């Protein structure tokens, strides 16, 4: 009996060490699979964010040793009127993206389901702007907005208005660039909406037809409510994208004239790589990161809340 017990315990012991060994092997496998990605990611994403935070406490020109100045960069930043202009312009991009770009994308998507000819041509051409590089788009539109030889002013002249020096006017420059942003990104939302519209069951419209619904009712009672998830996720993409905006402003206006179209991104770039105020630029960069973080957390929290509410209502 005792012998049997002893045998059992050795068997158990063996099994335990085997499963322990297996666990270790498993951990090693996981590590091997994940480590290449993790190393690159740590080196070029995680470390730089922490380093940026660290740099932001220094007065530093990028080459010599910096001087530790605590929160002074941040204090200076919050009283820097250019920074506030930049923040305001970033907000303008966000608002334009959500309230102009996304509705336009929806209209474009709906047009692809309209009972008219030429849908294939439309779906191809509507998507073109999204494929071009932002630099190329910026350069192209600089000439479209040219005060003398630009097509936009040509059109305005035809309509009986005076020429406008779009990109050199402090109030008009931002309008011009925002227009180009809408032009470039509306097709992206068009595609998202198109995919969502395809997914709406045809029966719903057939049923509505039987009830004698008009097109507007069909849109407002069927299409729009069912597109709500897409509208929400598009808005998230638009908000996040707006915080990152840089290329098109850098190319078209460089943040000018007189900082009128400055963004957090362009201002950070100038402070870092034109003026070599690397510490100050790091503070701007970290504020950008922080805002993105807050926005992300807010979106996650809203999503969590929405899901919880969904559970309750079921």
């Amino acid at each position, binding site marked *: 009996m005792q012998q049997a017990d002893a045998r059992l315990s050795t068997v158990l012991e063996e099994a335990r060490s085997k499963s322990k060994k297996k666990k270790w092997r*498993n951990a090693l*496998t*996981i590590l091997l*699979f*994940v480590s*290449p*990605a*993790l190393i*690159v*990611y740590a*080196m*070029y*994403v*995680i*470390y*730089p964010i922490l380093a*940026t935070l660290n*740099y932001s406490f220094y007065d530093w020109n*990028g080459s010599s040793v910096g001087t530790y100045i605590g929160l002074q960069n941040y204090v200076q930043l919050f009283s820097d009127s250019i920074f506030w202009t930049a923040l305001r312009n970033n907000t303008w991009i966000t608002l334009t993206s959500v309230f102009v770009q996304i509705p336009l994308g929806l*209209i*474009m998507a709906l*047009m692809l389901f*309209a*009972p*008219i000819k030429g849908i294939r041509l*439309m779906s*191809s*051409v*509507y*998507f073109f*702007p999204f*494929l*071009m*590089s*932002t*630099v*190329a788009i910026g*350069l*192209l539109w600089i*000439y*479209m907005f040219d005060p003398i030889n630009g*097509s936009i002013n*040509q059109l305005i002249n035809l309509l009986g208005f005076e020429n406008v020096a779009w990109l050199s006017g402090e109030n008009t420059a931002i309008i011009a660039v925002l227009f180009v942003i809408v*032009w470039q990104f509306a097709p992206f939302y068009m*595609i998202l909406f198109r*995919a969502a519209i395809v997914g709406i069951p045809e029966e719903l419209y057939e049923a509505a037809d039987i009830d004698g619904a008009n097109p507007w009712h069909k849109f407002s009672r069927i299409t729009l409510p069912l597109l709500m998830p897409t509208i929400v*996720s598009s808005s998230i993409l638009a908000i996040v994208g707006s915080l*990152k905006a*840089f290329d098109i402003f*850098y190319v078209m206006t460089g943040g000018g004239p007189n900082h009128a179209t400055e963004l*957090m991104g362009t201002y*950070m*770039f100038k402070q870092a*790589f034109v003026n070599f105020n690397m510490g100050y630029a*790091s503070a701007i*960069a970290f504020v*950008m990161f922080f805002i*993105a*973080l807050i*926005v992300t957390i807010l979106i996650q929290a809203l999503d969590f809340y929405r899901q919880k509410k969904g559970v309750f209502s079921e």
Partner: protein
Amino acid sequence: MKSFSKIPLYFIAAVLLIVSGYPFVYMISTALKTQSEFFEQPFALFTSFNLENFTNVFKLGLTGYFFNSVLVTVIAVGAVVIIGALASYPLSRMKFRFNRVLFLLFISGMMLPIHATLIPIFKLSESMGIYDTLFALIGPYIAFSLPISIFILTQFMREIPKSLEEAAKMDGCTHLGIFRHVIMPMLKPALMAVIIYNAIHLWNEFVFALVLISSPESMTLPLGLQAFRGDFAVNVPGLMAALTLASLPILIVYLFSQEKVVKGLTGGAVKG
């Protein structure tokens, strides 16, 4: 009456068509004009057919920028596909303690403003002695393509039935074997999406190139175009030729496989 009611629809369709397409028509038609023709009639479309601008653009170094862009894009996308797929495998198909945290860490990179990493990456590439070479771009390009790639790939990998994996395990397959012979072959559509998405984004990438490259020999296309602007201060047709040539590759790929490109570009956003 019925067709009459379609007039507003055709009107909207036409306006959108003109707004979307006209800049391209203008670009190509201007690229085909000589400079004096442009100044005489800046808005006349396709009045001349002059290829001189295109040959000039090549002389000014477009081929070099082009080659650099191809090189960087191919290397970075290739690496992202391998590294990203490897990482996605345990993240989507194995249970372990830090799985969720690790996944969120990677995914949250999608929200990250690149500017928050620019200065340290600039210093890093200087201290590694690769500043102003194409190597400087490859690391950041891989790192910043990982979040979306892992996002797309894990979504697809979760859909692959567990039973296939178990059968392979019975046959004595290791995890690497399962990954190579079971998972990868089933992942083709997802890999396609990852390749297209990243290739287009990296082909057009500007910020890192602007910060990490300064000499013309190492410039990629977007940076080269920006440099052309100085060379072509008043030569609008010349610049338009450069823009046309730089945009052509993606437009051609798009026209040949529209569905794939559209799917790839929205792969991360269109959730199943």
